[in-house]
Each structure stands twice: as structure tokens, then as C-alpha cells.
């Protein structure tokens, strides 16, 4: 609903771990408003009116690999809930199950491994600038109450499983045909060259798919290739380099010798030509079909 600026393109963050931790046999409980009050969701069976029609009767979550925790001090949970609501809930959801950009924390592997905030504190206090998460100057004690709040919520749910969330839904053979045919991927990429073993390098299918679409390394492989720029001055002299920044008024670059240079822009002078090595990836987003995306992903996964 409300907007927050998510700086990073990839919103994996804690969520990458969450994906690994996700158990298809479990699902989030349907909660009534206010169910996050301390103690309110210690039960796995929410009030009957919360249950959507047609759903099988509630049942207790089966034993799972999720940690069983001793109940925390209710005062800590309440305090943690307040601090969470003021600082974290917009991105991670008021129930910590995912919100505007931020991933579900309840099933994050890091959160599951955390005992009293010691792992969570590292992430909170340092941020994850590469994933768009800012650092928060909260104290270790304050974060331990946040941990108490998050840990107070049940990881598993009551609802019966319907369907699957395996992101691997495509057909590898069709993906291979698309790669070498209408997709024209082969014009820039080679499955024995730059893409060799890509299916083994990405443990997460969604991350692989995201890298495939954007063309960026996403921190798991190499750095994304940088934009380059050629500036032609009034004298006819040209200056080339990797693009550092550009707007209507200034263009700046780092040249081959590692020297930073910036130039004022006024209308068409100097002439500025930016080359984005990932432009073909941007261009294909306008026409790419979901089926082709899924098939291509299935194919890349086979490149172990």
C-alpha cells in the first residue's frame, strides 16, 4: 500500500534463507487483527470467524524441524512488538510474514537459527545495503526484544496444504529450443562459456531466474557489467570510461587510467553516448512470455 523506496532490485535478503527454510507441508496461519498480541498466537487455532469458507478444519501443525522455544517474558514480547511495529513492520509486514518489499522473517533460516537476537542483531545493526535494507541504530537489548516477539509467533500453520510453490515449473527442452532459437540468447551467451555450470552456482531457482532476466550477477556470481560512456567535447576530443553518474546537468566517468572526470552538460553539449551492456535484457522484458521465462529457467538449472 504505502510506498517505501527499495534501493535494491533483488529482495532476497533474509528471504533467500527463508526460501531454503520453506516447508511445502506448512503454511501461514490466517490471523485475526490483533492476533499478534503476546500470547494471542501461541495457539495454532485462530478464532473460527477467521477461517475462510471451504477450508478443511483446523489442525495442529505436525512436528517439524522448526525450533521449539521456551516462552519468552511477555513484557519482552510486548516491547519487541512495539519496536518492530515502529521500525520493521512496513517492509516485513506487521506480522513479520513479509510486507512492502521485505521478506517473511518467520521462516528465515537466520531467524530460525537465532536464539535471543544474536544473529538478528548483526543484520539489523549493519543492514544489508546490497539488498536495500538500511542499518538500524537499535541496541542489542532492544533487538533481543524484537527477537522475542518474532520467536513468539508460530512458524508452522494449521491449514492443509493445497498446491505447491516449487518455482521450477518450466520445460527444459523447450527452454533449450528458445535459448538457441527465438530467444536469441546464444548471440551473447554460451552454455559452455559464460553460463557453464550456472545451474550449480545458484541454489535458489528464483535467484537464478532473476539473474537471467536482469542480466545482473546479483552478488552470487560476477559483478554486473558497468555502463560505459563516451563524451565528445566541443573541440571534438572524446573521453571514454565507465559511467559514474549522469543527470541532465553533469556526467561523470572513470577513464581507463582510473582517473575520475566530470563534465557539465548543457542541452546537447557535450555529446554523451551511454552504452548499457544489459540493454538487451531490459529490451526483452517488454515482450518476454512467462512460459518462455519458466522454460529458460528450467533449462539453465540443468547446466550443472
Amino acid at each position: 500500500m504505502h510506498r517505501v523506496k527499495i534501493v535494491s532490485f533483488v529482495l532476497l535478503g533474509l528471504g533467500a534463507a527463508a526460501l531454503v527454510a520453506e516447508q511445502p507441508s506448512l503454511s501461514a496461519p490466517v490471523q485475526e487483527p490483533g492476533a499478534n498480541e503476546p500470547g494471542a498466537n501461541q495457539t495454532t487455532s485462530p478464532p473460527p470467524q477467521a477461517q475462510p469458507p471451504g477450508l478443511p478444519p483446523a489442525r495442529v501443525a505436525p512436528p517439524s524441524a522448526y525450533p521449539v522455544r521456551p516462552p519468552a517474558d511477555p513484557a519482552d514480547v510486548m516491547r519487541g512488538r512495539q519496536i518492530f511495529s515502529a521500525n520493521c513492520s512496513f517492509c516485513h509486514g506487521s506480522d513479520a510474514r513479509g510486507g512492502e518489499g521485505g521478506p517473511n522473517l518467520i521462516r528465515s533460516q537466520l531467524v530460525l537459527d537465532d536464539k535471543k537476537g544474536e544473529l538478528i542483531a548483526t543484520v539489523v545493526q549493519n543492514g544489508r545495503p546490497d539488498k536495500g535494507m538500511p542499518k538500524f541504530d537499535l541496541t542489542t537489548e532492544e533487538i533481543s526484544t524484537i527477537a522475542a516477539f518474532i520467536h513468539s509467533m508460530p512458524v508452522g500453520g494449521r491449514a492443509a496444504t493445497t498446491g505447491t510453490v516449487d518455482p521450477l515449473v518450466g520445460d527444459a527442452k523447450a527452454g533449450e529450443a528458445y535459448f538457441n532459437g527465438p530467444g536469441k540468447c546464444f548471440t551473447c551467451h554460451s552454455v559452455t562459456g559464460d553460463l557453464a555450470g550456472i545451474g550449480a552456482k545458484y541454489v535458489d531457482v528464483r535467484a537464478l531466474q532473476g539473474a537471467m532476466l536482469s542480466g545482473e550477477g546479483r552478488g552470487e556470481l560476477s559483478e554486473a557489467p558497468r555502463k560505459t560512456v563516451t563524451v565528445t567535447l566541443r573541440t571534438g576530443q572524446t573521453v571514454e570510461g565507465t559511467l559514474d553518474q549522469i543527470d541532465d546537468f553533469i556526467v561523470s566517468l572513470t577513464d581507463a587510467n582510473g582517473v575520475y572526470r566530470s563534465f557539465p552538460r548543457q542541452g546537447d553539449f557535450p555529446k554523451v553516448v551511454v552504452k548499457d551492456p544489459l540493454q538487451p535484457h531490459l529490451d526483452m522484458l517488454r515482450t518476454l512470455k512467462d512460459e518462455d521465462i519458466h522454460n529458460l529457467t528450467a533449462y539453465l538449472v540443468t547446466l550443472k
Partner: protein
Amino acid sequence: MKMARNIVLAISFIGLAGAVSAQGLDPVLLTKPATDSWPTYSGDYSGRRFSSLKQINQTNVKDLGLAWVSHLAPGPGPTGPFVRHGPGNPATIIGGEIEEAVPVRGAGHISGAVLQVNGILYVSIPDNAWAVDARNGMVLWHYFWKTKGGTHIGNRGMGMYKDWLYFETPDDYLVSLEAKTGKERWHKVISDFNEQYFSTIAPIVIGNHLLVGTADDLDSPGFLQSFDPETGDLQWKWYSEPEKMGDPGSQTWPNLDAMRHGGAGTWVPGSYDPNLHLYYFGTANPTPAFSGVTREGDDLYTSSIVALNVDTGKLAWYFQPSPHDTHDWDAAQTPIIVDGEFKGKPRKLLLDASRNGYFFVLDRVTGEHLLTVPYADSLNWATGIDKLGRPVRDPEKDASPGGALVSPDSDGIVNWQPPTYDPQTGLFYVATDEVYSVFYRTEPNVRALQGLNGIQEQRVGQMGKYITAIDYKTGKIAWRHLQVSVGEGESNTGLTTTAGKLLFGGDANGNLVAYDPVNGKPLWHTHLGQVSNAVETYMLDGHQYILAASGDTLYAFALNF
């Protein structure tokens, strides 16, 4: 030494007397086009954000320079680095219902309206309100609310009635302050904090009605309330969903439970037609936000533009830009009311650029649909436009396990940032951001999705940020100016136009820019690092000021004098 001190005191006293003499807001001001003052969210009720001032214009804008900077210091501590001294200088005024405020990271930033009435600016961020001298940025008073928590994403500004101010807090209080002193008159509960509401919107004063919205990202229903600005008593309450099955609109829901947990907060101020007595605003998205399985139907009045009778709170008409939304695309964007020609006939119009990427023209008397047109190239979520003028959602683009590639992303082509309409060019301007995201459903049980959860969104490409100028008569794009930057760039900015033939906005690199509204050519700029609210303008002592905010700092610009 002693003499010098006396002089300072004397000067302070004069300043004080000047400030005290006429602080109240003449309600008539609210019904006039924005000129000397900025008494309400959009400058006036029309939502146009067009100022008739033209002292600063295309010819002299190159000479625009800094008049003053004022850094505001939030929190319970000192009121700020540049504050009023002398008799009666208050410390920060503290309000709230708990002993100690819940710690909130960072200061927040100014991302809403700053009121300017009788030479004094009234500015707010979450939990904080200030009065600032519009001539030099000096802080006159500072009020701090001790929060219980809640999402501290933003505060869109204050409302003013006579000598009183109103603002909302993230923990769901409406706080009224004395404009003169910053002292609290009263505070009222707007919505239930325990149901995870949070409140950000700028209250809008219309006559003796104080319109107050609230929102919830989990699954509680949205509503708009009207309070008596004198007493804070409730006058009426309009729910974003029908209240019971059988009521008009309830046929667009499968059952009462889904309808009562349908979301649709009220978080961006609207516009008002004083002749029709109708208040127009957009509601937020339905919940669960990313799955419609438990709410088959159009889900009225979520993601809708609604017209309410301001005296009764009754719905006069509605139009739904995103029927059965499944991508967090609310319709909360501020609509603009324009009296203009459409297909050769003079009409009372309402113009709206919605988060879903479609631009709408409606008759604001009846709600009759006149025009629907996409205003971004990247849209791929609709299969067409139905006979009511509504985009038809493609269910294949709902979040799925394998991922659905969708544009816009959940932030939308535009978000809360206000558009502007310039009657001199006849163009509607909006800052746009074209992004593709892949939406994955990560919750195995599709019926168990709630609020914003159960999905993962991966942004995979930004096609560009633009200022987009739309000819409302045809829906054609008159021009687009690329907000070029090396990366994703700063957040979209709100826009403002003036009779000086200028269009003000922030660009993707944090420049404050004056553009030519005819073609988008930049005419003046200065780098602030970020422009966090939409520019405002006002006239004081014969000088036109341009007011912008960057983070927790106000910047005022004027021609050299």
C-alpha cells in the same frame, strides 16, 4: 554588552508581536486558488498544485537563489539548532500516553505538505510537528509525540482550522495543537492500534469538517472519518467496504468475512468541489493484497475513486481503476478537479493518474467515465479495457510459483507523489517509474495469504523514470522527459506548476529542477541530494518563495533581493 542584549530582546519582541497578530486561518482562503499562502495539502482544494504566482518565471528563474535553510531536529530533545529565543521560548512540547517513546530508527523525512499561513510554516514528520518562520526558517515551537509504535513510513502533513492544527500519528491518534504555541488541545483515537492500523495522512479541513484517514497493511477495513474540528467529536464515518451483505457493493464480495477484512485504507488526501459539496479521493488496495482467491469479485470500494458528500459521508458515486486488484495497486493518488472542455463540451472533470499505469478522465458530477488510457509503455497486466472504462486484469499475471513478469511493480507507475495540472498548458503532469517485477507466490496454500504476505517480489528491470505530460482531452502523451541516472535513482517526486510557466520537481539524482511545462526542458536546478516532498510556493513581503524539503531539512529559494 548589556545594550546589545536589549536590542536583541527588542527585535525578538517585534518579531513575536508580528507573529502573534494574525495566526489564524481564514477559511475562505481554502476555497481560493493557491497564491500567497499554502493552507491545505495541495495548496487549495482542486488538487491542481498550480500556483498563480509568476514573480519567478521563465525569464528570471536562472537567478533563483537560496533564501534560507532550516534543519529540523526531531525527538524529545532541544527544538533545533535555529530556534526562537526570548521570553516564553518553549522547550520541545511533549505529548503521548506512555512514559517513554518506543525507539524509532532515524528521524524520518519531510514527505508531505508544509502549510504556510500568515508567514508561518507548519511542518511535520512522524511524531513531530514544528512551526517555522517562513521568512528565515527559525523554529518557533516543536511538538513531539511519544509513540507506542506503528509503521513510521511518513507523515503527509497537517491540517489547519482557525487557530488550530491537526496531525496524525503512526500509533493512530489525531492530535490538535494551538498554532500559536504548539500546545496540545486534545488528542483522539482514530483507529485501533492493536488491529495494526497506522496513520499518516494529512487531515483535510472542509467547512466544519475535519477529514481523517487511516490505513492497515494486514486486513482491517479502511475508513474515512469526519471530526468536529472544535471538539474532536465524530461526525460521520465512511467504510471503504459495504458494512453488511445486501448493501450496495456487497455483491462484489463472496461473503461478509472477506468484505470485512478487505483492506482499502485511506492514506492520501483527495480534492474537493465546494459547489458540489463532494470530496474525491482514492482508496487503497484490497487484502489479501496478492491473491484474490478468497475475495472473488470486484471488491468494492477497494482501489476506487470515490465521491463523498462532505456533510453526510454518503457515497455519491465511485469508479474503480483496478477491479479485483492483485498487485498492491491502490487508487490512492490525489485526483485533480478541472473545469474544462471535453469533446467540445464544457465539463466538470476529474483527472486521475492511477498507480496501475492508467490515466482516467471522469465527470465529477456523476462519475461518468470519459477516458481511459495507459500513460506508461511497460504495462502488461491488462487484456483490455471494458465498457465501463476499467482495465481488465489478466489472471495469468497474478503471483504464481514459477513467477509472473509484471509491470508496474508493486510500487506502481506512480505512488503517493502528487501530480499537477497547469491550466496555461492544459497538460496534466505526473512523475512515472516503469519497472518490471517478477511476482512469486511462496505460500503453498493460496487461501492462507493475508495482508501483503505470501509472495516474493523480485525487481528485474527499470525501463526509466520520467516526467510525463498528458493532454487530458485526448489522453495523448504530450512529452516525456527521462530522469536519467546511472542506477535506479531517487524516489519519484511530486510536481508543482506555476503561472510563471514553470514546472518544479526533483529528479532521479536529487536535483531540484524547474522545467519548461511546454516541453520538459530544464531551466534551473540545484542539487539537494534528495527532494523528499513536492515543491510548494508562496508570496511573502512581496517576494515569491519556492519551498522544498530534503530529508529533515527545509530549503527556501527566492530571487535575489
